[in-house]
């Protein structure tokens, strides 16, 4: 948008790391007001901007902070003052008023505040950005991993990357390199001999089938484990935990994490105990500050590696989804300064292309367009080109109400090579059956792209990573059923993984 020729490389799929591993909360800032006022102020301004430029990714649900019986009653005043000081809107409310908003709140809820929290779909947000970046001329490639940097005299020359689609190695000679690799930022920096002080902090989230809350419900107490539940599409997400880990490979949810989250969150919403936990997931938060855990600031840090001996590398670490645009603005400011580009950043004002109202003449049923509006923000006209004439099309995923033509549409994109790629774009396979029926549909839509056995195996592995450690009750039975259905398919591979 500022006239710079840009290439973006992503080793996996878009949003397959930390950006997708959160609860999709668009922070009002209230969560950080007391302990991290800097982050709180960032959230206030950024959430307002995002509700404009990326409206199709946001459900403006509102939210609340509630104190439960045993909580310190003095914290409410501290919280209220901190919100005022940071500009976070928080309306003090009685238990009765809060119950009118959320009918499933515990009777033990004493009082609390209504805040401007909202829900953001991180996958949709990242994809909308990618589309918009492409429209402005950027070259964006997923499934391309950087394999080497050529460096001489403190300057990065040629950058080589491997395309996972065919194993071919491409190269580019950039003037400036931006390292925004999340949890892998440290290893990217060390590939060029740079150094990044970064701590990794892991948080677990649990997805439940169905919705018991209409907006976010937060615990009115200092940030702690299990203090939030967020409604998300057809499900709700409760979290989180916080523990430091040594590398991305330790990032796995545990049964203890899950039990702790259910115990804590059900103090606010007791019916959660009876809800069906579908899966647990998480991601490591790359934190910019030296400390880790709850005490560490969630703000971000921009590092120019010139002092460290690399004159054209900039790293951006820390931060959070709500402030991603601000982080990007600061980063591109630094890039433009290096390049001598004078144009201003306009990402805060321009509505992203995919967020522009583009309502197709509706060929689909009313319930289907409602589902598409929930998932995409609107009914995208370009998707309608593949709807069979005179037909409403065939439903592929009944949990999330995804139609075959939606799968076909995304499967035809060069970005999409795995079933999980297709799932992130359409939500097929995210429901309680975790792709039992629709993974075949997705494999089928993708089948020109690759090995079917491999597609299915990768997807089953990906889904099981999230469920295997925490699975129990009805969901365990569901998984048994799925194993049963998979058996004829897997037997063909010599009986492994029965």
């Amino acid at each position, binding site marked *: 948008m500022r006239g710079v020729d840009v290439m973006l490389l992503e080793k996996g799929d878009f949003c397959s790391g930390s950006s997708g591993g959160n609860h999709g909360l668009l922070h009002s800032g209230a969560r950080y007001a007391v302990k991290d006022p800097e982050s709180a102020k960032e959230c206030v301004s950024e959430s307002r901007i995002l509700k404009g430029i990326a409206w199709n990714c946001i459900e403006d649900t509102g939210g609340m902070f509630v104190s439960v019986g045993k909580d310190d009653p003095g914290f409410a005043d501290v919280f209220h003052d901190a919100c005022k000081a940071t500009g976070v809107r928080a309306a003090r409310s009685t238990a009765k008023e809060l119950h009118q908003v959320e009918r499933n709140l515990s009777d033990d809820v004493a009082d609390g505040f209504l805040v401007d929290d909202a829900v953001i779909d991180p996958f949709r947000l990242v994809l909308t950005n990618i589309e918009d970046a492409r429209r402005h001329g950027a070259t964006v490639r997923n499934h391309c991993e950087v394999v080497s940097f050529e460096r001489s005299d403190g300057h990065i020359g040629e950058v080589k990357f491997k395309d996972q689609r065919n194993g071919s190695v491409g190269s580019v000679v950039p003037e400036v390199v931006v390292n925004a690799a999340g949890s892998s930022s440290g290893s990217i920096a060390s590939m060029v001999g740079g150094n990044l002080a970064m701590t990794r902090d892991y948080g677990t989230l649990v997805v439940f089938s169905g919705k018991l809350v209409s907006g976010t419900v937060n615990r009115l107490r200092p940030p702690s484990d299990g203090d939030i539940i967020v409604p998300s599409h057809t499900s709700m997400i409760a979290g989180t935990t916080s523990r430091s880990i040594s590398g991305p490979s330790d990032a796995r949810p545990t049964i203890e994490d899950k039990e702790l989250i259910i115990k804590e969150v059900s103090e606010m919403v007791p019916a959660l105990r009876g809800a069906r936990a579908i899966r647990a997931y998480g991601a490591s938060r790359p934190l910019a500050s030296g400390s880790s855990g709850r005490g560490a600031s969630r703000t971000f840090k921009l590092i120019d590696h010139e002092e460290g001996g690399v004159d054209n590398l900039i790293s951006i670490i820390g931060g959070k989804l709500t402030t991603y645009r601000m982080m990007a603005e600061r980063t591109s400011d630094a890039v433009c300064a290096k390049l001598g580009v004078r144009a201003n950043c306009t990402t805060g004002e321009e509505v992203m292309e995919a967020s522009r109202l583009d309502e197709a003449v509706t060929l689909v049923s009313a319930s289907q367009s409602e589902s598409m509006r929930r998932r995409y923000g609107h009914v995208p006209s370009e998707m309608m080109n593949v709807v069979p004439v005179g037909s409403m099309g065939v439903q592929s995923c009944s949990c999330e109400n995804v139609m075959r033509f939606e799968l076909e549409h995304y499967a035809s994109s060069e970005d999409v090579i795995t079933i999980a790629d297709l799932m992130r774009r359409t939500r097929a396979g995210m429901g309680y059956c975790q792709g039992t029926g629709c993974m075949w549909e997705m494999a089928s839509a993708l089948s020109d792209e690759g090995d*079917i056995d491999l597609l299915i195996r990768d997807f089953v592995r990906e889904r099981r990573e999230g469920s*295997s450690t925490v699975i129990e009750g*009805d969901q365990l*039975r569901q998984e*048994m059923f799925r194993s*049963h259905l998979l058996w004829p398919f897997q037997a063909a591979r*010599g009986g492994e993984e029965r």
Partner: protein
Amino acid sequence: MIDLPKKEVDVLVIGSGAAGAISAWDSAVKGLDVSMIGVGTPATEMSSGCIRFNDDRSVPEGLGLDRGDLEDAFSRAERFLIDEMKTSGLKMEGARRDQGRYYRCHGTIVPENIVQGPTSSGGLDRIEGERICVIGFEDRTEFDHRLFAKALAQRSDLRVEHIAVGTTNGVLRNSSVDDLLDMFVDAAGSASGEVVFVPPFISLKDIDRWEELEKRSGRKFAEPVMDLGMPGARLRDALISSASRAGVSITNGASIVGMSISKGSLNEVTVRSGHRLQHIECGAAVFCGGGLVGGGLGVSGKDVIDPLGLFDVRYLREGDGIDILARASSGGIRTGPGLEAIVDGEKVRNLFVAGASLPGMNIVEGNGIGDAMATALLASKAATEASR
């Protein structure tokens, strides 16, 4: 709730999958008054309809069953499959393989045959020829002919082509089986393949149509196994049909809500179907409710449980990761050496358990329908004796 008049039977069979049906049939052909109740979709119906009788008897023997009795039950179950299923309109074909004997409905192809290709299938499911054609309905996704053709080509050296017929749902809705048969004969005529794969569209007792299809087109037809596929449903239909012919009274959509047991003996079973409640006094009962997949057993947390809260259940409490699945499925209802159910640590003399409800017999574990049917014959023999 409406109370129906009390009913008296010699043997009550609970569960109407493969184990329940053969058990009820067996007691009925011996002249007993037998009722069978079932609810939902049994695992048999969800299966590939292929039946394996394992040579390895370690799982049923681990239940304490006598080896000689077991051998007898296995050979009776095999005979039942061949003779009785034929009378019910299902042509079962069997062959010896490395670890046992395998049976399947005529025309059904299982994935192993695709992987092993045309030459190494030991007589069963042989794909004769090197060129294959897959025909599918254009806009029906339950059988995706393109995907299937692709998988087939990837797994073997076969040359595979695919053809679509019937471009709209309307054509299918308004077509009779004979119209479809004509469509497939036409499509097969334009194929170069020697073997033609089609979605399952010919129903039970239509061996004649199947043969007509092959005769008119001059090609060999086969239908692949699919999730929730027709072969499993056909097998179940044939089993139910055999039980019915033997005089078994069958109630579907009914589940047990209570069992009255005193002094180690089952006296009465309470059955509920919608708003109707019925007390059934029985001489003996056989529980073939299935395992986790069939729905006879449930899961609470990570423990296998019996939803009735009646039986003693064997389970492994601890587990991690993917092991949980295997461990959960190895649980089941605890029985005595003659398959008598154990309730509160005591054997019940006239209540027997068979099939996937037994430990280690869950279909996910892989012991499958063959072993389930053999244990069901042992249970029905015991129930027949106990009811007298």
